[in-house]
Every structure is written in structure tokens, then in C-alpha cells.
């Protein structure tokens, strides 16, 4: 594509530079992507379920802790009597082998933990990562070097191992979900820091930052007014990618038996218990697996959607600013999503190294 044809488009599409990523634009661009929308809906539902967990449990008339030994065949390893893991009018999704606790109740309450931990961790990662990235990007050679090395260290950390070690250090009194969020957050913020740093460096070289210096603004003022706004998009996008990977990490930790404390339920905890039972009681493994899968999938497609909507990388990759719109216009959403997805894996792999 050449400047002409493109600016010909620009005539219609209106202007060369990136439009401000205002909430309205984002929404407008999200709306056109069916998958992303679906993902969004699922997410909303999940959040609602999590929030209204007690309600749901009450409707079923069960709680997460009561044992139902009577429903278990003790001699056969305490698996539930009856089919589908003891599904019945009282226990809609059956009961947990070994204890006889109600699965439906534990699933809906589990959503609370899993989402809570993941969201907490993500927020933390974003905060720490952005802080480091920003400081490194704005700082002088030395500061940048130092901070980048620190970041490297954290990217290099075998996340899961450190989680295990840290979890061992912290007194058991500490509320576990919070701890999990903290540990995940404190360990794997490296990738987001790197992304922010690169963004800042890219922005720094742009003329409007120079202009702001000429305007007599202090570095901080410049950062606040010129840089931060432009960071929102990539950070949001990446956060949307981090979140599902955090859900998985929580599950992974629980899977290794160092997740939330009993009798709290989380999907990861259920999965790890289920992995003990799934042959004798396959319903038990499929439930949390399906939910976890659905959640991660929802967040992933939603993240793709946001990525397209905010399209943080396209501009920087294309030589002519005008090409950005052409790409979004001419290339179907999916493709545009992937052009941004290039940023994802190298980052994502940092989170996955532990949980792989």
C-alpha cells in the first residue's frame, strides 16, 4: 500500500494519527467482534456467579463444608454412590468423593477464590510492572540498566519454585488467597515491565514529548501528560492477557498442593483433588476443568478483542502512521488481533514457565 491510496482512505476514515483510545472508541471496536463480546458476556456471568455465590448455594440448599458420609461407598475408596458422582435433587452436580461435600456449592464459591486471586495478582503485576517499566524508560542509562537487570532476574525466576519457597516462608496465619495473589503478583511482573519500558522508550523519541520539554514541563509532568495516556492501551491489553495466565497459575499452585487452605474451595484445589479421583468419578474432574477452560477461553478471546480495540503495536510497527487504519480496515479483526499477539507469547511465556 502506498501513501496515496492510504491517505485516500484517510479522507474517509478521517486523519492520519492514532485516534485517542477513548472508552467510546474501544467499545465501538469491541462491539464488532462477536467472539470478544461472547467472552465478555461469559466473564460478566462468572463475576456475577462469584459475587452471588451464597445466593446460588442457598437456592440449592447446600453449603461448601457439610460432609455427607452416608452417600459415599467407604469400602470402595469413599467414592459417591450413584451415577455422575452422586448427582441428585439435593446435589445438582453431585458430591465430592472422600468427603461428600456438595460440588455445586464448592464450584460457585470456588469461582470467588479463583477470580479473586487472579484479579488481585494481575492488579499487582500491572502496578509493579508499570512502575519498574516507567522508571527504567524514563531513567538515565544507569537507572535503566539497573532496573532492567532486576527485571531480567524476575523474568528468569522459575515462578512456581519461588512461589513454593515464598509460601513456605510466610506464617500460616496469613489469609491464603491474599497471599497467593501477592506471591503471583510479586513474582511475575517482569514481562509487563519490559513492555512498558519499550513503550516509554518508543514514546520518548517522539516529537510531542520533545515539544512538551520545550514547553518547560518537568520530566514528571511530561510523563504524566504525554506518556501515561499512551501506556493505558498496551497495559490494559497485557493485563487482559495476564489475567487468564494468573488463573492458571493459581490452579497450578493448588494442583501442586500449595494453593488455598481448606476448607476453602478454588477451581485449582478442586482440580488437584479431582486428579486423584477422576477415574472412579470422572464427573468430578470434568466440572472444574470445564469451568476453568471456559473462563480462560473467555478471557483470552476478550483480551484479543481489547487488543484489536486498542491495537497498541500496529502503529509502532508500521512506518507510515496512516497505515494503521488501513490495517484495521482491510484486515479482519482476527488478523489484527494476532499482529498484536506477537507481543503476547514472549511475554506470556514468562508467566507460563512455571506452570507449564
Amino acid at each position, binding site marked *: 500500500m502506498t*501513501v496515496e*491510496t492510504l491517505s485516500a482512505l484517510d479522507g*474517509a*476514515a478521517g486523519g*492520519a*494519527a492514532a485516534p485517542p483510545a477513548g472508552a467510546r472508541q474501544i467499545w465501538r471496536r469491541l462491539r464488532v467482534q462477536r467472539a470478544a463480546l461472547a467472552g465478555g458476556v461469559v466473564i460478566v456471568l462468572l463475576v456475577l456467579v462469584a459475587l452471588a455465590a451464597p445466593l446460588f448455594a442457598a437456592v440449592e440448599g447446600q453449603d461448601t463444608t457439610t460432609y455427607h458420609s452416608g452417600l459415599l461407598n467407604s469400602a470402595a475408596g469413599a467414592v459417591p454412590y450413584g451415577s455422575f458422582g452422586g448427582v441428585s435433587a439435593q446435589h445438582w452436580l453431585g458430591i465430592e468423593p472422600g468427603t461428600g461435600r456438595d460440588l455445586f456449592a464448592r464450584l460457585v464459591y470456588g469461582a470467588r477464590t479463583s477470580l479473586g486471586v487472579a484479579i488481585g495478582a494481575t492488579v499487582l503485576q500491572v502496578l509493579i510492572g508499570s512502575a519498574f517499566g516507567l522508571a527504567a524508560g524514563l531513567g538515565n542509562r544507569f537507572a535503566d540498566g539497573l532496573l532492567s537487570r532486576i527485571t531480567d532476574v524476575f523474568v528468569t525466576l522459575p515462578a512456581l519454585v519461588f512461589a513454593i519457597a515464598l509460601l513456605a516462608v510466610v506464617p500460616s496465619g496469613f489469609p491464603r488467597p491474599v497471599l497467593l495473589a501477592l506471591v503471583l503478583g510479586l513474582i511475575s511482573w517482569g514481562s509487563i515491565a519490559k513492555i512498558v519500558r519499550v513503550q516509554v522508550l518508543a514514546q520518548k523519541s517522539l516529537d510531542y514529548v520533545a515539544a512538551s520539554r*520545550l514547553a518547560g514541563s518537568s520530566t514528571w509532568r511530561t510523563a504524566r501528560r504525554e506518556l501515561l495516556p499512551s501506556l493505558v492501551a498496551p497495559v490494559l491489553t497485557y493485563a487482559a492477557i495476564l489475567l487468564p495466565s494468573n488463573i492458571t497459575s493459581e490452579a497450578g499452585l493448588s494442583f501442586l498442593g500449595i494453593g488455598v487452605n481448606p476448607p476453602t474451595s478454588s477451581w485449582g484445589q478442586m482440580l488437584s483433588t479431582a486428579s486423584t479421583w477422576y477415574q472412579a468419578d470422572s464427573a468430578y474432574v470434568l466440572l472444574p476443568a470445564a469451568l476453568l477452560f471456559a473462563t480462560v477461553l473467555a478471557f483470552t478471546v476478550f483480551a484479543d478483542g481489547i487488543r484489536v480495540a486498542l491495537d497498541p503495536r500496529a502503529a509502532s510497527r508500521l512506518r507510515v502512521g496512516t497505515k494503521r487504519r488501513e490495517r484495521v480496515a482491510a484486515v479482519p479483526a482476527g488478523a489484527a488481533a494476532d499482529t498484536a499477539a506477537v507481543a503476547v507469547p514472549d511475554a506470556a511465556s514468562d508467566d507460563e514457565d512455571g506452570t507449564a
Partner: protein
Amino acid sequence: MTLVEVSDLRVEFPTGGAAVPAVDGLGFTLDEGEALGLVGESGSGKSATAYALLGLHRGTGARVSGTVRVAGTDVLAASDEELRRLRGRVAAMVFQDPLSSLDPYYAVGDQIAEVHRVHHRVSRAAARARAVEVLRRVGIPDAARRARSRPHEFSGGMRQRALIAMALACEPRVLIADEPTTALDVTVQAQILDLLHELRSEEGLALLLVTHDLGVAAGNVDRLLVMRNGSAVEHGPVAEVLRAPEHAYTRALVTAVPQVDAAPDRVSAQPAAGPGPSGRGEVLLEAVGLRREFGRGRNTVVAVQDATFTVRAGETVGVVGESGSGKTTLGRMLVRLLDPTAGEIRYRGRDISSLGDRALRPLRRELQMVFQDPVSSLNPRRSIGESIADPLRAAGELTDKAVVTKVKDLLERVGLEPDWYHRYPHEFSGGQRQRVGIARALAPDPKLVVCDEPVSALDVTTQAQVVSLLGELQRDLGLSLVFVAHDLAVVRQVSDRVAVMRDGRIVETGTVDEVYESPQDPYTKGLLAAVPVLDQAESAARREARRAPDETPAPAPRVG
């Protein structure tokens, strides 16, 4: 006989909603050995037309209608196979950006050999030989060796030559050159244009030259087709079109082209006449032995060295030079966006070259800058009003209300609607954005404004408007301007005095007339000689002059 035949060509690009015609009912023909210039400003659809000739719109989602015949083939109806035979073999295209148009991973020679073998059943060895041959043909020195180097090891000019060589390799009958020199320095541009001219005369190639630069077209084609918004506004022999343009737009276009020779009515503050340069207002800014290095250790690059010159109150100093001459670096040092490695910058006699950020802040407002790229110089996420208000708010002297009023005044001052305050950059055209940039520079009532290639990214008509705006402002506000540009004509238009830079050094300074009428430095001479001119006789003469083997040193090829 007729080689290319285009009639009622329409090209539409679907953009989400309504389809926009980039080309709208265009028609023209091109005969064997003939040269047609397709001239128009950005968005006029000239390149879209060129692409249509090779059917390059296929698979891009663009809708093409009408008829396009190239050497008898109906391009729009042709099968992919027919099209492939057409491409390169009959009509070969030379693209605008020589760097990105070659595969960075392969040796130039191999790439040429590859396209050669597409159309000629020959051995690899033979193809390579052919590649070397055409490279030599387009004047690549030591072609056999250079054929093995990758594009990034070529200078811009050589890359463009390589692209042309690639075209030649297929022995086409028509050459389609899409803005072949836009990315190049003026001297190199001259060389490329000469090469095209030579090839035409010697190989009997037909040429379709797509360009935004009337000057470039003037000296190199027989007929001109002036396009605007996708359709032809004027079409005829060059001489006539240029001498007596019928259409108003063409006239505007022609007059807008800055003339490097024969000083036009100067837009700058004072008439060149009067008490020589020395006599004018007191010295405002003084650069003494400025030096700037980039990188450290072995890979240190000296961008500017002992640059010494002065700017007096109310005058305009032009700084000309080709890319890499260090003019932008110099400009940025003057406003302390870059810190000089050595040397002094005296502002009103005070050395500011080593002031810290804090100490500098009060001075900042007096030294402002207008940037080259209207896209990157405005924050896309902030309304233009806010961008302009920035210096005012930073100073924090005015009330919010006062700031807004002042910004609106400024907007008006630079010829924009005051109530566009809340609009965002993407809603403006390049020219408008540049005006915003100017408004922002003016906001803190500066004494000196450095304009870094303020118009090079703009269409010629817009260029003229912005240039005159600058001059006008300077006159009214008694500003001093440092006008950094590669375009000698523009510089001549605006400047009182000129400094010519080459490879980081100032090779010549003086009043405009001195420098342009009787250049001393051979490099300056070369530059001036290379500038394309509208008058054909003149340009022919210049070409002859350039033919006389290299007495003018062209800038050393720089690794891109």
C-alpha cells in the same frame, strides 16, 4: 503504437462503511518510448492508477472497474498466469521506498536474478551474470562485488538504482516509476532522474513517471497528466501545461512550486536589500564551535562539528543540507533539546549550552521549535487545544480561562477555527496539523523559533501556504527563525541568510543572494545544479552540465 490504454478507470477501497473512489473515471494512453508524467498531490490517486496497470490491486479488497490494456492484455480480465507474464516482462515497476522494496535477507544480485529467471529460461549462473550486467548498466560501481551485498549495505541512491536494474533485468517495454526519487536527496534524485532519462533514450523504454513534484516531472516527461481527487484535471504536453495551465488547480500547483533560481518575492521579514546583513538587529543567538557526537567508544558518530553562526533578532537563517548533514541535530541543539558535546550556545550573550533542565525552564519559552513530522509532533491522545496550551499551563501564569482564550486566538492566528480547540489531531490534515504545531510554538511568545523541515512532509500547495504563514508571523511578531530544510528553493524563499551543511560541517554561509547567485563551495554548486526546474530547456542544460563527469562531488553513499 499504443502500449498502455486506460479508460474510465475506477478504483475503490472499501473502508468499513462507504467505499471511497481513489481513482474516478480516469483515462489516458501511453505509446512506445513515450514518457507520461502522472502528477498530483497526496490522495490524488496517482499511485492507485499505477498499481492498476499491473493489476496489483488483486486480492487487496480494492474494487477496480473500467478497462486497462497493457500491450494488448486486458489487465482486469486477465488470468493470474497472463498477469504474471505481463508483470515485469512488459511493464516493470520501480517503487518509492527503495529500502523496504527489496528483500532484506537476500543479496541484491540474487533478487534481480530471481525476477530475471521468472521471465527468461536461463541457468542461475546466467541470471546472476545478467544481474551484474544490469547493475553495471545502472551505474553501480564494482557491480560484480556489490551484487553480493544486501540492500541495507547500499546507499539510498544505489538501492533505487538496484530497483531500476531489477526492472531492466526483465527487459520490459514500459517502466512505471512510482515516486522514484521522493525518498532521495536532491543530488541523488538528479542522478536517478538522469539515469531514467538515459535509459529511455537508449533502451527506448516507455515511462510512466508518478510524482508529486512538478519539477521532477517537468524535465523528464513528454506529456503531463495532472490528477486531483482521482480524476484528471489537465492533460497535455509538458511545455503547454506548464506555460499556460488551463485549470485553476494546475495554475496553483505551478505557482506553488518554489523556484530556486531568480529570487521570488521574499516572504521573509526584511527585503534582502538595505544595509548588509551585519547592520541588522542585535545578535539574539550565537552558536560557537558546536559539536555533537552520538554513540560511545569505537562507534562514535560526529553529527555536527564546529558549527559557528549567529541569529539576529528578527531575521531568518536558513540551514540547508541533505539527509545526514546534521542540520536537524544542529537545530535541536539550538533549543537545547540535545546537549552539545562541545561548543557554546550564547542566547543574548549568555552561555546556555550547559544549563541544567531547571535553570533552562524559564528560557525554554523563548526558544521554541516547529517539528517536521506533523503526525508524531502532536500527541494523538490530547486535543490540539491542550497541546497548544501546554507551555502556558507549564508556566502557570495565566488563569485557565485566559489560557483557553489565548489558545483560541493562536488558532485563529494560524488560520484554524478557534472552536477546534477540543478536536484531536487525527481530525486534521497534515497542513492543518503543522499549523497547530506552529501555534504551539508561538504560545509562549518565543523570541526564536527553530523550524525543522516544517514543510517537507506537506504537499506543494500546502507547503506554500505554511511557508507564507511563517513569514507573515515572523514579520508581525518580529520573531527570529532558524529554518532547517533540505529544499533549497523553500529555504531561499524564506531566509535572509543561509548556512549550507554537509556531513556535520557548515560549508558555506552568507546572505541568500550571495549563496544562491554565486556559490563558493563546490558542494553548494552541486546542490544548486541538482535542483529540478520547471523550464525544460534549463533542466536539459543542467542535465548536460551534470553529464560532464563528476566535477561536483556527490555526497558519499551512506549505509542506509
